[in-house]
């Protein structure tokens, strides 16, 4: 197989960029939905009233992770058909687990004696949550969101298979016609999107992380 540089550059500079916006939509909408569902669910699962259900609900989220996204689309095909909607649904389900799992783990790992002292000082449950548990949990929750984001960028390629568009359109076209140049151009953009999204979220994480953890991290890396 010979490498056609002209075709590669044409794909890289003209065909692929048109799919960036589509692809980002396929990432950001499911990711936002997943955060909006999984974070409150994770928080709820650490409240005393629901703590017992945590195991069971987490196994449901786990199951969501094991079903291949294409199977989700096939499952919902009778109700939703093909296209953009089912793709978003499948990607949302796929992104739930890392966020929910990290939210539960983060809040559960807030030291017991810190919560005990906060309660003993006279903080209400709401104050303990917003002033103690949540700030201490931000770094781990953000790690979950970053994982989900990178996962969704790559999984969203599959959306093209069901007519959901995105960068997958180029990649699968390349696979069909044995044009390696197209696959490479599409994949390059996937990589760039994954890295920049991860970096962007890392910046946000840094902003939200409580200062004592920042200084600890700095010391750790030097």
């Amino acid at each position, binding site marked *: 197989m010979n490498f056609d540089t002209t075709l590669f550059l044409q794909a890289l500079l003209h065909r692929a960029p048109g799919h960036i916006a589509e692809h980002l939509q396929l990432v950001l909408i499911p990711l936002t939905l997943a955060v909006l569902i999984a974070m409150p669910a994770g928080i709820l699962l650490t409240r005393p009233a629901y703590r017992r259900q945590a195991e069971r609900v987490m196994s449901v989220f786990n199951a969501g992770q094991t079903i291949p996204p294409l199977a989700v689309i096939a499952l919902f095909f009778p109700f939703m058909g093909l296209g953009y909607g089912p793709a978003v649904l499948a990607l949302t389900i796929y992104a739930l687990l890392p966020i929910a799992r990290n939210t539960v783990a983060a809040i559960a790992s807030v030291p017991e004696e*810190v919560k005990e*002292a906060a*309660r003993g*000082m006279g903080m209400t449950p709401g104050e303990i949550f917003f002033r103690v548990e949540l700030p*201490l949990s931000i770094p781990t929750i953000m790690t979950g969101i970053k994982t989900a984001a990178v996962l969704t960028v790559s999984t969203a390629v599959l959306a093209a298979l069901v007519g959901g568009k995105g960068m997958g359109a180029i990649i699968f076209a390349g696979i069909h016609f044995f044009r390696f140049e197209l696959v490479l151009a599409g994949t390059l953009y996937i990589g760039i999107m994954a890295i920049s999204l991860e970096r962007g979220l890392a910046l946000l994480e840094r902003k939200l992380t*409580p200062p004592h953890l920042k200084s600890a991290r700095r010391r750790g890396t030097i």
Partner: protein
Amino acid sequence: MIQLEQVSKTFRGSRQPAVDRITLRVKQGDICVLVGPSGCGKTTLLRMINRLVEPDDGMITVDGRSIAQMDPPTLRRTIGYVIQQVGLLPHRTIAQNIALVPELLKWPREKTARRVAALLEMMDLDPGEVGHKYPHQLSGGQAQRVGVARALAADPPIMLMDEPFAAVDPIVRVRLQDQLLRLQQTMQKTICFVTHDINEAIKLGDHLVVLKAGRMVQSGTPLDILTQPENDFVLRLLGDDRGVKILDQTRAETLMDPFADAAAQAAANGHRVQAIDPVKIALERMMLMNTDEITVCEGARPVGLLRWNAIKAHVHRISGGAS
């Protein structure tokens, strides 16, 4: 004043009550020490006073008001609480940690800042240096001093302390104990203090409550308990050096022979202790000087003579000559 009336608590899944019909009164300005082996219910009892644990039965009142009628967070903001693991909020600076309760009480910012600085000074911590640090940058002893400062922040009349000095090394522990006693002389807080260390209990307590398996075994002043232990359990808890402990709790003046007249007073020898010094100190000096008697003074004035024989006889009499 804190009053507990026939208070009981059985935890779910346990057949034996953790706290079994305890009646107790902690006087204003006293340090009341709850002492006993682990699992005796002392911590549970303490945590019922700020409603971290709800009693099944009985009544607890603070200054005559039943705490069951109060909103728990509001109640807790009026009671200082210190725990063994300290539990400082790791994401807040030391100053912010101490400011926690004043903040919850919505104090003006300036008043809070002044109070925080004053408390750090009081605990022998430099406000300029320590105030901006985070808890993980402190030593264990420093962290616990901050824990005490945080509990004192809103000047609560009552303090609950749950083995606050158990996790620090022995040298620091003695320093923290001395500091607490020094502060208490001016603060006059009503303090409930939990410990399993009988030496700490005797040193700090105005009043001791000995607990075993949820029941109160004995209560009284340290000297009461040392001189009249209720049973073998208390005797064992007091340890092998009960006589020495008694001498530490007995003032020199109680065992001395008072001088009958000015002539005897004038003949007093050179070695002296103060009347309010513990006999243990007098004994230490007698041993150092290799003498059998020492002059007891009130200020500069000799008032009596303390003899080795009197000390010996006293310990012998109290321990019943038995054992």
